[in-house]
């Protein structure tokens, strides 16, 4: 092999094949972010897939995943009426009309369809309060200093196999910043959908709550019925400063596969928040009913003194679904407190595990209430 063809071969088989430059160029990303992706990718290549979760699935061919897919038409919308009729039909089928959501619930929706945010509503009224709520790629363009400061500050690219993969190839997601002392007047909501066949979705969500602020964030997921396995490896990072409060709620009902366990979404998600300042509070609430496999541990690092972490979870599995889910509460600050309430409901041939860690460091003294409950549905 000549030197040239070897070079081309190397390139084709390594980073380029994964489309970093493609994603980066397409999104017009700054050089430092491309470097960040490449650093994550190089680290990911040295890692092995975790085998400790109590779930079983065929080997994933990571080369076979389409790492970036966008709706064919790039549309700039002035109003919701201009929304692609097909996308609108999808919303209607799911019983979620954006207008209704907008008018009735007063929820700003950042609809993520196939990785690119199509429409963000309520931005202006939020902007008046100094709240930034936008797609991740927009935030990279408009607020690079915030992204640079907080990206990877809670979940570093070295954290775990799927977080590293996400860091390398994440397509889009949401960014939210609540300035000092602001109480976000509405619930912020993102709808995630997985629309095109064989598309791995690598969403990245970053929420920063500055001193004394409050925000309630909703994440709801639905996906159309589909035959093949779809990998979803998202990362959610929450950074809470002194006296800040963040409430993060998820209802997840992705396609769980059929009665014989065929198809369904692989949901390998890393979610973590840090109470960086004193008296901060982070609360996770999740209702997990979908996905063929759920691998998810929303965690809180209680670094500030008197900080509070909460985890409320319902995980439902039926047929051949598998779930290995729980939380980690890392107590570092003084008088930190955490509550864990985890409920599992399982039917059919499903597997359902709770896996959690409560770590209390020597310098912290605190009260922790930890409660885990399991529940089984009997098959007659």
């Amino acid at each position, binding site marked *: 092999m000549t030197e040239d063809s070897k070079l081309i071969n190397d390139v084709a088989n390594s980073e380029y094949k994964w489309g970093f430059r493609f994603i980066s160029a397409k999104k017009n990303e700054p050089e430092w972010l491309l470097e960040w992706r490449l650093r994550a990718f190089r680290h990911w290549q040295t890692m092995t897939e975790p085998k400790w979760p109590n779930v079983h699935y065929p080997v994933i061919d990571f080369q076979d995943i389409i790492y970036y897919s966008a709706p064919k038409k790039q549309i700039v919308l002035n109003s919701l009426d201009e929304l692609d009729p097909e996308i609108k039909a999808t919303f209607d089928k799911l019983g979620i009309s954006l207008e209704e959501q907008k008018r009735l619930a007063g929820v700003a929706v950042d609809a993520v369809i196939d990785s690119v945010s199509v429409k963000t509503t309520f931005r202006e009224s939020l902007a008046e309060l100094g709240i930034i709520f936008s797609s991740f790629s927009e935030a990279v363009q408009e607020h690079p200093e915030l992204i640079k400061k907080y990206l990877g500050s809670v979940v570093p690219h070295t954290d775990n196999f799927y977080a590293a993969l996400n860091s390398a190839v994440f397509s889009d997601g949401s960014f939210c910043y609540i300035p000092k002392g602001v109480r976000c007047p509405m619930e912020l909501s993102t709808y995630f959908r997985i629309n095109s066949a064989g598309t791995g979705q690598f969403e990245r969500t970053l929420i920063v709550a500055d001193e004394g602020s409050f925000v309630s964030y909703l994440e709801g997921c639905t996906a159309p019925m589909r035959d093949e396995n779809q990998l979803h490896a998202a990362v959610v990072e929450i950074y809470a400063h002194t006296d800040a409060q963040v409430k993060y709620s998820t209802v997840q009902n992705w396609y769980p596969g059929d009665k014989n366990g065929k198809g369904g979404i692989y949901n390998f998600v890393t979610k973590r928040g840090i109470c960086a300042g004193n008296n901060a509070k982070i609360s996770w609430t999740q209702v997990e009913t979908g996905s063929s496999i759920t691998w998810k541990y929303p965690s809180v690092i209680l670094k500030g003194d008197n900080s509070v972490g909460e985890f409320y979870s319902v995980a439902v599995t039926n047929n051949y679904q598998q779930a290995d889910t729980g939380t980690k509460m890392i107590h570092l600050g003084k008088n930190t407190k955490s509550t864990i309430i985890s409920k599992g409901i399982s039917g059919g041939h499903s597997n359902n595990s709770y896996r959690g860690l409560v770590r209390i460091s020597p310098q912290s003294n605190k009260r922790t209430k930890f409660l885990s409950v*399991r529940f089984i549905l009997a098959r007659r």
Partner: protein
Amino acid sequence: MWRDTFPYLEVNNRTATVEHEATTSKVGEDQIFYCNQRGISTEDAVGLIVNGYCKEVFNQLPMEFAVEAQKLLAISLEGSVG
């Protein structure tokens, strides 16, 4: 079928208080029987019992999500009993 818990507790501080409890149970036959007697189908009864069991968590959800979650739960469990 597995239903497992893996609770790891690492307490490196004497002044800390940590409580933990775990229970595993079935939907009570007598609870279902009670509902059946009053004209509530087994499927509906399971929905009621499970929703009651999850109330503690659902109460933490914003209103519109809580309603959606209850419906979801019932749909997810269809066909798991009977």
